[in-house]
């Protein structure tokens, strides 16, 4: 096996090239290779969703994705949600509703919520709960997260 491999991928809109271990996970490429540390590791076994990112338009647990699979892929992480200093609607809603307490689940939760709202712009409570069931949070009891997601959906309705 070669010592390192070279990956090229698009991350948060920019083309990036990075050398990494052939066995590395997408999570390692993002955190160690590209120093995008917003994406978190909560379990390393696909159970908690803290490492959620968008890969080619789908939410994945980046701790389960071999880096090689992301070759030429398009990745969006939490760092890619805001436009400069301007928060995206879902980030703003999380802030206002206190949906981020310790904040460790937040990056993954935001990616999952953003994706949910894209697929289903006006989810009801059950749809939000089901849509976020792959992302564990130990702080909030999810009530304020559900509130935050639904508040964005309702704004969409008004607009």
């Amino acid at each position, binding site marked *: 096996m070669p010592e390192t491999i070279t990956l090229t991928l698009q991350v948060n809109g920019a083309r990036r090239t990075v050398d990494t271990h052939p066995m590395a996970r997408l999570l390692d490429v993002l*955190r160690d290779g590209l*120093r*995008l*540390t*917003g*994406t*978190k*590791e*909560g*379990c*390393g*076994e696909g*159970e*908690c969703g*803290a490492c959620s990112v968008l890969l080619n338009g789908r939410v994945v647990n980046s701790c389960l994705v071999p880096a090689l699979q992301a070759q030429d892929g398009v990745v969006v*992480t*939490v*760092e890619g*949600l*805001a436009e400069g200093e301007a*928060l995206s609607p879902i*980030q*703003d809603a*999380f*802030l*206002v*509703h*206190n949906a*981020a*307490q*310790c*904040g*460790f*689940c*937040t*990056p993954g939760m*935001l990616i999952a919520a953003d994706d949910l709202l894209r697929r289903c712009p006006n989810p009801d*409570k059950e749809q*939000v*709960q*089901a849509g*976020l*069931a*792959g*992302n*564990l*949070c*130990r*702080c*909030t*009891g*999810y*009530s*304020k*997260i*559900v509130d935050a997601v639904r508040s964005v959906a309702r704004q969409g309705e008004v607009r």
Partner: protein
Amino acid sequence: MEVHVIGASTIRKEGRGKVMGSAAYADDVDLPGCLLGMTVRSRCARGVLKGITFLEGVPWDEITVVTAADIPGKNFVAGHVDDQPFLVPVGGAIAHAEQPVLLLAHADRAVAEKARRLVRLDVEELPPLLDIEEALACVRVIHGERNVLKEIRIAKGDPEPVFAAAAHVVEGVYRTGAQEQLYLEPNVMIGTVEHGPAGLEVTVSGSLQCPYYVHDAMKQLFGIPGERVRVVALEMGGAFGGKEDYPSVIAGHAALLALKSGRPVKIAYDREEDMAATTKRHPSRTRIRSAFDAQGRLLALDIDFALDGGAFTTLSPVVLSRGALHAAGVYRCPDVRILARAVATNTPPCGAFRGFGAPQSLFAIERHMDVCARRMGMDPVELRRLNVLRQGDTMATGQVMREDPGLEGLMDRAMAAIDYRALQKAYAVRNAWDDPVKRGVGLSVFMHGCGFTGSGEATMASVAGVEGRPDGTVAVLAASTEMGQGKNTVFCQIVAETLGLPVDMVDMAEVDTKYVPNSGPTVASRSTMVVGRILEDAARGLRLALVQGGFLAEPYDPEAFREAMRAAHLKLGSLKTYGQYRANPGFAWDDKTYRGDAYPNFSWACYAAAVAVDLVTFEVKVEDFATVQEVGRVVNPTLAAGQIQGGVAQGIGWGLWEEVTFREGRMANNQLTNYIIPTAADLPHIRVEFLEGGSPFGPGGAKGIGELPMDGPAPALLNALRDALGDLRLDEVPMTPERILNRLEEARHA
């Protein structure tokens, strides 16, 4: 200008960084040249370490290895009792299966991992002691003369003769299992050691709740004075008590490796190691004997409360104390006897977890009251109404209810919120139908003592301060840490309100023991109430200093205050004022007799749950959950509600699903695949109501809220299950589907 900052839902101070992904947690810190540390553990519940062998397969000369022989100071983690070694020495006793024996570090994680697997421990095994009953029965003696880490007795009157004459005597035994805190961020600690002019200088930073606990631990481990130890608390991804004492161990390990290697060392536990090795909620067993008169008035309580402390003392004495002090619940009772014991077993030490002993004893009494009511043919709600504490009543320690806790009002509100009576009626009809889903509703009434028990706060004499900075902002100086609960925001609100400034003029200083005073550990629902009040004093001091120094004239506006701080800075160089803990006048506590005012204050609550049980799968769905609490003045309603909802979710998890399975003294299900915590799909939207009573003690009348929500869910849920399923032995949490099935079978055969 009138500014009202307390009572406003100010947005979380550090929230922006958290939603942008830029908040830096310990594992996010870039550390060029750092080594990664690993821990080799005993893997045997009880024995003697005879030797260590290093097998071939890695370049051992590149790997830093630390054993107990490398420790410069004392090989004990500073605590209530010095009995827990940082590393087991060769020839030393092994007391549990996750005990650290040896440390390794290398720049490449893969090499360090491989090396860990190439260390062989030569151990002479001994038979272990594994649970409360074995320990109490002294099947083997592993600690002192009878395996007791701590014993507490509380007595009020004499219950014994009352039992003989009472109309009703009801007995019950209740058990609760261990629970994993499961903060989403596993433990991470970074250590560096430098050789300064006076000797070793140790710096540790990471995910930790109590900087000065770690500070004490490093002084003792390295045998150096406090000036040469620096502890920095970084952004923390949750803790819930789980990062109260164990971080001292990891910090010591990282610093020992740093000393030996001369490089910074990071130890980051993965989830499996974190779950297996670090502290959990104490398993418990509570035996209650209660006497009632013919009308259902509670006459006597005899409670035997036991906790499994694990292999070392750690925090067990104080967890036990809080459990014992909550064991009689919210009831008026003339004659009470409480015997509380924490026992030693050969399992990893238990520690702090939100609630700290109280959820265990409150589960027992709140479940027991339901059992008693049904045994006496009474409604559980009415039995509680008849017996709850009112103004002038005394608790088991003799503490007098100076104000009315308003418990009946809390019950009324909680029952209204969930529509208790209507649900009960509807369920009674529907449960008779031939439908495999049975529903029930139940409640619990409880309290949580705010702040440290008894004389704890007075002994600690915490200090906190504020600093007027030259840029015209105010910094809060306190060692209290942010773990998601909202301390950053609430402290800034309290200081802003006291100074009459907008909250964006106030910020937290970095929690670094080099700059902030010891405001005590961030535990025991004490930060808002105790530290908040100290900050109120410190802020008043700052204003007074500016006024008396001629820099500021009252009344003032924020701009004038800013100017005054700039001017004072130019003249004085630095502008800091401090406050220190002041005891509540008229409160007294005797630690020897366990008599007096156990807590300066209690928060009070009633929680109601509606559940549905599927008799095909035995799964329980929580359909509705209502919480009503009196926590004094609510400083930040949105943050406070978040605390309640999060605590309730953990309480529901403990009550229904979260089971730690031990096999030969080791956690067998130390993975998120088989240790089940609630997901978004498992919980209802949790209703939160606050009734604001005034507290003369806390800042602006605030009391503690952090732990309260952990206490009520488990008994409310099991009481609701009783309502759904009829007379079953619902005496244990978690009440998993397997347990429900077993209890139903048991009832069928009875």
